């Protein structure tokens, strides 16, 4: 995969003291508070946190989406030096899909069911790579489908989304995000609700894609274990702030912030006993109610 990388290794994503608010009743409530985030080119960053911590809002803002009832109260988001809030809708469309690829949580439902995989992929190319002629589009679609692990890309191109399994649909969604060769790939909880083997296959695929290209990855998940296999760095979000940001191994081995410590300890791990077992087996009076039943 080729991508035009400027000589200066400026950060691809630069979020500065960002405060985002939602309207609730008559007042504005912050969901993201003075958030700073810098992501360098070629980095893979895991954004972890739980429902309501603001991570999905951040992803939606990075895609340049605006919504009624939501406003940027302070700060700025820059992708490749462009302040997203100053771009026109046409400029944003050029950014989305072309330079920023996005894989939503439910890859399967994000695929239009009435269109063949070939049409889905070629539509993206027609919009974002107008210089490609029809045969070149088909070749590019085929190449991308092979790159996400379809052994028979020609056959897969002719089929409809529902003819694939959940894991395959997820990979088609990934191919759609990557087919225009974006510089930034955003993944919003793509493995949530998936079986371990499907999750593992997707992560292995992303590791392989990183090895072969310079794509920058922002992977949003509440699953630290999944992030740990892919990301160089993990940022943990809580209540609209990034409370911990460090190299993956450091975050997992020595989390500093209390919330990060709690989150790391809560991850079910094959190599560690449940941290609560001591307390529970002592029967230290945690449940007076049951004893008096």
């Amino acid at each position: 995969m080729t991508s035009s990388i400027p000589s200066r290794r400026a950060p691809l994503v630069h979020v500065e003291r960002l405060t985002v608010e939602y309207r609730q009743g008559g007042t504005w409530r912050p969901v993201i508070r003075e958030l700073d985030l810098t992501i360098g080119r070629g980095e893979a960053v895991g954004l972890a946190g739980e429902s309501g911590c603001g991570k999905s809002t951040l992803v939606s803002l990075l895609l340049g989406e605006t919504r009624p009832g939501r406003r940027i109260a302070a700060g700025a988001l820059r992708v490749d030096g462009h302040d997203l809030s100053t771009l026109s809708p046409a400029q944003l469309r050029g950014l989305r899909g072309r330079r920023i690829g996005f894989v939503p949580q439910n890859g399967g439902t994000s695929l239009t069911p009435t269109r063949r995989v070939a049409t889905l992929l070629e539509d993206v190319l027609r919009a974002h790579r107008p210089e490609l002629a029809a045969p070149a589009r088909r070749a590019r679609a085929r190449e991308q489908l092979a790159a996400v692990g379809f052994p028979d890309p020609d056959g897969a191109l002719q089929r409809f989304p529902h003819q694939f399994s959940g894991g395959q649909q997820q990979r088609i969604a990934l191919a759609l995000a990557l087919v225009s060769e974006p510089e930034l790939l955003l993944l919003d909880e793509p493995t949530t609700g998936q079986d371990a083997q499907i999750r593992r296959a997707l992560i292995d695929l992303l590791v392989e894609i990183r090895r072969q290209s310079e794509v920058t990855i922002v992977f949003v998940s509440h699953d630290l274990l999944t992030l740990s296999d892919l990301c160089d760095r993990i940022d943990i979000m809580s209540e609209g702030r990034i409370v911990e940001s460090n190299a993956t191994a450091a975050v997992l081995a020595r989390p500093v912030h209390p919330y990060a410590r709690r989150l790391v300890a809560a991850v079910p791990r094959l190599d560690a006993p449940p941290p609560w077992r001591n307390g529970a087996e002592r029967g230290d009076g945690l449940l007076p109610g049951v004893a008096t039943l």
Partner: protein
Amino acid sequence: MSDSKIFAEWIAAASVPPARPRRSGTRAFLARLPRAARVAALVLLVYALVSALAPWLAPFSPAEIFVGAPFEPPSATHFLGTDALGRDVFSRVLYGGRTALLMAGGAALLTTAVGGALGLVLSYCGGLADEIGMRFLEVLASIPSVILALLVVGALGPSIAVVVVTVGLLAVPSSTRVVRAAALAFVAEDFVLAARARGEGRLAIALREILPNVAGTLLVEFSIRTGWAVILIGALAFLGFGAPPPTPDWGAMINEGRGGLDASIWPVVAPAAAIAALVLTVNLLTDGIARALGPAR
């Protein structure tokens, strides 16, 4: 940090109430009601009050003839003039509200009660009973309602009870279908499974578990059926199959006033406007209720 301390922290963290506790209940429901629906509710209240207080508000008896000359124009004595028989149109319109509200409300109540009960039963029974019941109701629903109503009322003779029961039962098939569809969405939910695992009976599950969840649907259905019944009862009365005279009825008034339109438009316009405004009000309220209950209910 010790393990038990981490444990205590989890518990504490998990005990934090959600940031936005969504209030459920009557007050929250009222707060979500759109403005148009609140105005409509107010208008409906005025309708009800005026109808209830008609004997005190009406300047004349609605049935008494020649309280004025025939086809008098609106004046200080007769606000909306008089009709062909010299009856006071204003008083008749006020009393007509009683007939309209009581008959339409009664019919809608009957529809919702019978349709609701059938819908609940069919949704929970499923299987063959459901298939047969639904097909039967579809056959009934395929006959045009005004024609069917005319046939039944014509055969039994027009009386308030016959009209109310006929109009009420006519809408049962469609109400049943709506309630059944709403209830089916809940039959598949885990709280119904949990009730079955506890060994609750079918009736208990239908009444305790499912009914509270379709209450909103029933309310909307009642409201829709009221508006519908106002129109159908008015149409029947217009065709001469309404409440027997001298009961003041808007539909009948329009029919009676038709012949004298060139002499005075008020005996037609006043009841027609009353029906139109009532239907509009009920529809606005229905729409608002449906919105306030949200898409899930």
